[in-house]
């Protein structure tokens, strides 16, 4: 890694990005901050209420539940998707036409609009017209994602695993391709077992991409909205209502601008905190290299 040249004129190159992201991030965020400290009745009537909404949001049990559900969901899918993704990446062919074909086929779920993902599983899981639902009832499992909270949860998790494991797999696949062939040759000479090859050659080389993978999957699962919204509508009851959906319900559904804004900020801060931890880890790892 060469050292970079110090040059403050580089700011001119960054300026366009700064302007466009400022327009679509800072201005809206300021609006949110503004709302979060006011009680708004209509366009011209509003009162300054200070930290009132924040207090209310922090004590709101619905939001606590949504937050717990959110963490539980993110952890569950990470625990399933990361090992499964590594496994799939290890199985993927490395050379020739079949490698390209596998790449394209594996990537397909990532290219489907999120509401269509919801629709696919909505259909697939139904007992009357869906293969999965019909299969479950054939083997004698009482399965109905629309009325049973556990089934709804399982279906949302299954959908997310189906949808996003390919991302982890592709990440690991590109990480595996970056390992020089000589490493494997050395392992063969040492007659290393398959497990030893994985544990001492492949896994260490995968650390970098796995961190990116965990980061992306954590963040994206933390703001999941469309798929469960289409699949279960957040129900039955509120068993699959995650943070984003709780927020949208409050902001658009009930039009409680103040509390919704305060909620947004708390939500955003949680994400920012986790994001910062990951970012520092990645940057430190690159420095160590």
């Amino acid at each position, binding site marked *: 890694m060469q050292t970079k040249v110090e040059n403050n004129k580089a*700011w001119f190159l960054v300026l366009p990005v700064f302007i466009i*992201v400022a327009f679509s*991030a800072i201005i809206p965020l300021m609006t949110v901050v503004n709302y979060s400290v006011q009680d708004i009745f209509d366009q011209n009537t509003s009162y300054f209420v200070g930290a009132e909404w924040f207090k209310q949001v922090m004590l709101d049990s619905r939001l606590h539940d949504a937050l717990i559900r959110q963490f539980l969901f993110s952890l569950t899918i990470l625990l399933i998707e990361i090992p499964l993704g590594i496994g799939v990446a290890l199985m993927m*062919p490395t050379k020739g036409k079949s490698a390209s074909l596998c*790449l394209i086929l594996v990537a*397909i779920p990532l290219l489907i609009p999120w509401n269509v993902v919801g629709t696919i599983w909505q259909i*697939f899981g139904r007992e009357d017209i869906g293969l999965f639902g019909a299969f479950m009832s054939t083997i004698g499992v009482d399965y109905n994602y629309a009325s049973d909270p556990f089934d709804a949860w399982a279906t949302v998790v299954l959908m997310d695993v189906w949808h996003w494991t390919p991302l982890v797999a*592709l990440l690991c696949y590109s990480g595996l391709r970056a390992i020089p062939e000589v490493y494997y040759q050395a392992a063969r000479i040492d*007659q290393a077992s398959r497990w030893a090859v994985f544990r001492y050659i492949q896994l260490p080389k995968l650390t970098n*991409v796995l961190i990116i993978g965990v980061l992306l999957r954590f963040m994206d699962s933390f703001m999941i909205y469309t798929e469960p919204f289409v699949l279960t509508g957040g129900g039955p009851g509120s068993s699959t209502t995650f943070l984003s959906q709780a927020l949208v319900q409050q902001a658009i559904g009930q039009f409680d601008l103040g509390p919704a804004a305060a909620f947004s900020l708390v939500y955003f801060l949680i994400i920012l905190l986790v994001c910062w931890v990951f970012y520092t880890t990645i940057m430190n790892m690159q420095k160590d290299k």
Partner: protein
Amino acid sequence: MTQSSTTHDSKPSAAKYGTAETIQAPVYSHAERKARNATRRSRLGMVLYLVLLLLPIYWLLNMSFKTNTEILSGLSFFPENFTLENYAKIFGDPTWYMGYINSTLYVVMNMVISLLVALPAAYAFSRYRFVGDKHMFFWLLSNRMAPPAVFLLPFFQLYSSVGLFDTHIAVALAHCLFNVPLAVWILEGFMSGVPREIDETAYIDGYSFPKFFVRIFIPLIRSGIGVTAFFCFMFSWVELLLARTLTSVEAKPIAAIMTRTVSASGMDWGLLAAAGVLTIIPGMLVIYFVRNHVAKGFALGRV
């Protein structure tokens, strides 16, 4: 057969490396056989995974060729009365097919804007140190991580107040929120892979910065640009929440039309499936062009 091939394999190695190798030869072929078994097993596993992966999509495709009565009358792996009626309905109705045109328009706009602003910025991040560069980079990244739901209402009001509500450019700009940071990140990864000596040599040869950038640098990272364009396309294409909120009639994306029409006509499953299948096709077309680089792109150019 196996016997003869192993002796055939061990002979040249014995000739080359002397007698010590001949003792190891059977062990080696045993390991080889194990490796071959492992390949076979992993190929089997891969096929199984792909089948499970594609089954739900196949089910959608299968359904899109059936009539509603057939769908509701029972399960079958192939449509009995194969029909294109569902697709005909979509291509014959402007309120349906305009959705695809709208989506494509704002996705392309977003792709162009994101690439244009991200290219110089990514170059700056990969080549120079400047005041606040690390903070800027993190700030950009944090926008990629911002939940769209947080920005829903302010976006709506912002774009309404500047008269951009229900235009393609509004959605394209809104999607810049997560696509520009992503583009900068991926491009920076690819650009850092290009040795700095190339820049320096070009400057010594008398190239000005813009000339160098367009003539030399951009051709060097074209696979990176292709992958970035693909990712911008992908994330803008799959997003629904912002696109739906910022449009009402003129720029309504296909994804939003799907949700509305379906609930109004009392679940037209066949039509829903056909519309869903049509949303998958553009993604499959574009991924074909970047298939060899896409894995590196998913690692954000950092492998």
